[in-house]
């Protein structure tokens, strides 16, 4: 940048904290290595570990049980390509991609929800509500009704999500994007899109309409590696961005002015956050359909489990992943042989749990 006068390169410390001032106010342990330091939250770490373990347990259970039970050692072997052929077929071809898609989609929804709840400073500001999921759904339905392939449906829903986000952001932009305006405009655009969905559903032939109706609920049924891998790439690309975003987003929860005062360029950060959140949401929807509630509930659940102020991105990702595969497992097994789409289950489980949390909080 510009060469600033040498006298100003180092900032004087007029407060002059005396050397004996340390010790107070270090509420959390810190890892330090030379000039590096990492702040840890014991409760957050514990919550993360617990959620990860739960995720592993549910994944193993989902991989091992079903119409044909595969013992856990065989699963591990099959994943490394050394298991019995039957186990390999079932695990590698059928169950593993579904579980992996579920985990990745859930994580993507969780992070996306956390980002939008943070920038709108609003627990309802999840992509479910501000129209982005609706955009993805509209794209997907159009592709379903036009008889598109799985890839075309995924592409159309990602495109729908991105276009919708651009429209919402542009309509909400007015010397910057304020959280509540984003929410309101998103709801307006979402309403238009939902009615477009219904228009297509009522115009379509009943079989197409039923397929599309199933798709908009969100489902992990029949998901293969071709669904999981794009989400994995998207997450690999976007999670580092999200990690970079998490500190400025945390500051922005104190208000735009407070964030600017500590040197955050609020509008660019928010724009990057919206792009990342939209892409995550779009990719997830493309893979599994617009699964309701994960993006809304995961950050809130994570927040309550870790008792942290504001939403935290890594925990939201873990919680979203566990929530989605847990719901998928329940949807497959609870009413067997009837296989419910996971979207119905996430909505039901998420809704009931949120109600439970609201009750608890009221105490």
């Amino acid at each position, binding site marked *: *940048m*510009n060469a*600033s*006068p040498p006298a*100003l390169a180092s*900032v*004087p*410390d*007029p*407060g*002059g*904290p*005396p*050397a004996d*001032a*340390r*010790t*107070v*106010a*270090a*509420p*959390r342990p*810190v890892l*330090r290595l030379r*000039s*590096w*330091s*990492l*702040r840890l939250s014991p409760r957050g770490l514990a919550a993360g570990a617990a959620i990860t373990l739960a995720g592993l347990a549910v994944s193993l259970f989902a991989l091992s049980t079903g119409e044909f039970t595969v013992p856990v050692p065989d699963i591990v072997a099959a994943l490394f390509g050394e298991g019995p052929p039957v186990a390999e077929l079932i695990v590698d071809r059928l169950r593993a991609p579904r579980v992996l898609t579920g985990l990745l989609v859930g994580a993507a929804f969780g992070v996306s929800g956390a980002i939008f709840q943070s920038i709108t*400073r609003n627990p309802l500001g999840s992509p479910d509500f501000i129209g982005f999921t609706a955009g993805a759904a509209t794209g997907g339905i159009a592709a379903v009704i036009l008889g598109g392939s799985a890839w075309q449906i995924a592409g159309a829903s990602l495109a729908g999500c991105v276009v919708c986000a651009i429209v919402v952001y542009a309509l909400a932009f007015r*010397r910057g994007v304020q959280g509540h305006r984003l929410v309101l405009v998103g709801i307006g655009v979402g309403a238009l899109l939902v009615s477009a969905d219904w228009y297509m559903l009522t115009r379509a032939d009943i079989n197409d309409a039923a397929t599309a109706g199933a798709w908009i609920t969100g489902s992990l049924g029949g998901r293969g590696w071709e669904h999981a891998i794009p989400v994995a790439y998207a997450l690999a690309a976007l999670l580092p961005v999200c*990690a*970079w975003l998490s*500190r400025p987003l*945390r*500051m922005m*929860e*104190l*208000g735009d*002015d*407070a964030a*600017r*005062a*500590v*040197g*955050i*360029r609020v509008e660019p950060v928010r724009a990057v956050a919206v792009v990342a959140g939209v892409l995550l949401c779009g990719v997830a929807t493309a893979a599994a359909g617009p699964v309701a509630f994960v993006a809304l509930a995961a950050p809130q659940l994570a927040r309550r489990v870790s*008792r*942290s*102020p*504001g939403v935290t991105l890594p925990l939201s990702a873990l919680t979203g992943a566990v929530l989605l595969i847990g719901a998928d497992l329940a949807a497959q097994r609870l009413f067997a042989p009837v296989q419910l789409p996971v979207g119905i289950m996430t909505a039901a489980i998420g809704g009931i749990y949120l109600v439970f949390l609201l009750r608890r909080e009221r105490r």
Partner: protein
Amino acid sequence: MRLYGTGLTLSYDKRVVATDLDVTIPDGSFTVIIGPNACGKSTMLRALARMLKPRAGAVHLDGSVITSLPSKEVARRLGLLPQSSIVPDGITVADLVGRGRYPHQRMMRQWSREDEVAVAAAMRSTDVTELADRCVDELSGGQRQRVWLAMALAQETPILLLDEPTTFLDIAHQIEVLDLCADLHEQGRTMVAVLHDLNQACRYATHLIVMRDGRIVAEGDPASVVTADLVREVFELRCEIIEDPQSGTPLIVPEARRRPVAVAGAGAVAGTAGVPVSG
């Protein structure tokens, strides 16, 4: 001068608040900006704090146009206590104050020893150390304001701007916050505050900027700037100026609607205004 603005045209959307405004903040001063409502004083402060981009002109910090400097770099030299901030649910005092260290941190340097020292010092000087583990939501207005101030202090900037730091506080807490600001000023910081109360402004400021209709009407040492004529011109208030019995700074006594008959002299007027005459 480290901080000054030249030829500023300030506006919100299409509403122009000030045109061609020049302002200079003397180094090491406790500058207080006063003026009637909607005179542009908060807007000017926001422009100085690069919260508001001027439509024309530029704010300079240490010789560079402030918007050309990296944002974090500015944040290490110039702090702001904004008028409106949001308290996230369940955030503790220590966490909130710690967030003021943002400009000194990086992704791989999240909490250095300097951060720890700075936060401890900021909490001590604002007297919120005992509140460290309390939730900010639970605090009283005065405590909260001290916590926000602690966060701005933790930023360890040589220049600190405060946008109406005493609003919504009772008189005792107002004085407490202003005394704290005066202490910080004595420690060598340049302080700039927007205040509403003329008498408090006169008492604490070393440099007073008086604004009206987006213009600076007068500036300088309060004792030489504040006159009855100025107050009448700027605030449309008839008043008498006496000496503050505590600090010797100007004290504005608004003219009574019904003057006591045949009584004159400073003592009687001071009595009318309810100022305790202390020994």
